[in-house]
C-alpha cells in the first residue's frame, strides 16, 4: 500500500475559482509534511512545511495557504486561483527527528488554470 496519497490527480480550473488539494500519509507517526510546486520544465520550489498538527510554516508567498487538520493530512488551498498557479504540486514527507531527513514524494497533482 502507498504511504502517501495525493488527490486529485489533475485539475482544470478557471482563474478566480477556489482550489483545494489534499495529501494523506499512512503508517507514519508525526511525519514532517511539505508542499512543493513545479512549473512545467522547471525546478521544485518548496511552498510550505509542517512539523506538527495545526502548525504550518510558509516558505514563499504565492497567494496559497496550507493547513494540517490531522497528523496524517496536509491541505493546500486558495480562494482565488491565478494563471501563475498552474503547474505540478507535490506533497512530501520525512520523519520527524530522524538522523536522515530523507524526503519521499507523492505522485503529484497537475493543475491547469485557464
Amino acid at each position: 500500500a502507498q504511504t502517501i496519497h495525493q488527490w486529485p490527480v489533475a485539475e482544470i480550473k478557471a482563474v478566480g475559482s477556489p482550489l483545494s488539494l489534499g495529501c494523506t500519509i499512512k503508517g507514519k507517526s508525526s511525519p514532517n509534511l511539505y508542499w512543493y510546486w513545479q512549473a512545467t520544465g522547471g525546478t521544485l520550489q518548496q511552498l510550505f512545511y509542517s512539523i506538527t498538527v495545526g502548525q504550518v510554516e510558509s516558505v514563499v508567498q504565492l497567494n496559497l495557504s496550507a493547513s494540517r487538520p490531522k497528523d496524517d493530512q496536509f491541505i493546500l488551498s486558495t480562494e482565488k486561483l491565478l494563471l501563475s498557479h498552474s503547474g505540478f504540486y507535490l506533497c512530501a514527507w520525512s520523519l520527524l527527528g530522524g538522523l536522515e531527513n530523507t524526503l519521499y514524494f507523492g505522485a503529484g497533482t497537475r493543475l491547469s488554470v485557464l
Partner: protein
Amino acid sequence: GDKVKQSPSALSLQEGTNSALRCNFSIAATTVQWFLQNPRGSLINLFYLVPGTKENGRLKSAFDSKESYSTLHIRDAQLEDSGTYFCAAEASSGSWQLIFGSGTQLTVMP
C-alpha cells in the same frame, strides 16, 4: 544567482555507457539528496548524503561539503535511467528547507 547549480542541463547517452552529473553549491550545504523524476512526474529518492560517498547498484554519489559540490555517477546506463535528475541541498542541519537544483534531463538511447 543559483544557490544550487546543476550541470549539465541535458545529456544524451548510449545504453551501456557511463555518465556523471554534478551540483555546485553557493550555500553551506550540510546534506544533499538526489532524486529521479520519471516522465509521469513522480520523484524517487536515490540518495541521502552527509559528506562522503554512497553506492547503490549502478549508481554512486559523493558529497564534498568543504568544496561545496556533489556528484552522481551512473554506470552502464539503461533505458529506464532516462528522466530528470535533481539534487537538493539542506542549508543547515535539521532545517526544514531543501533547495533544489534546476535538474539534468537524461536520455538514454538504445
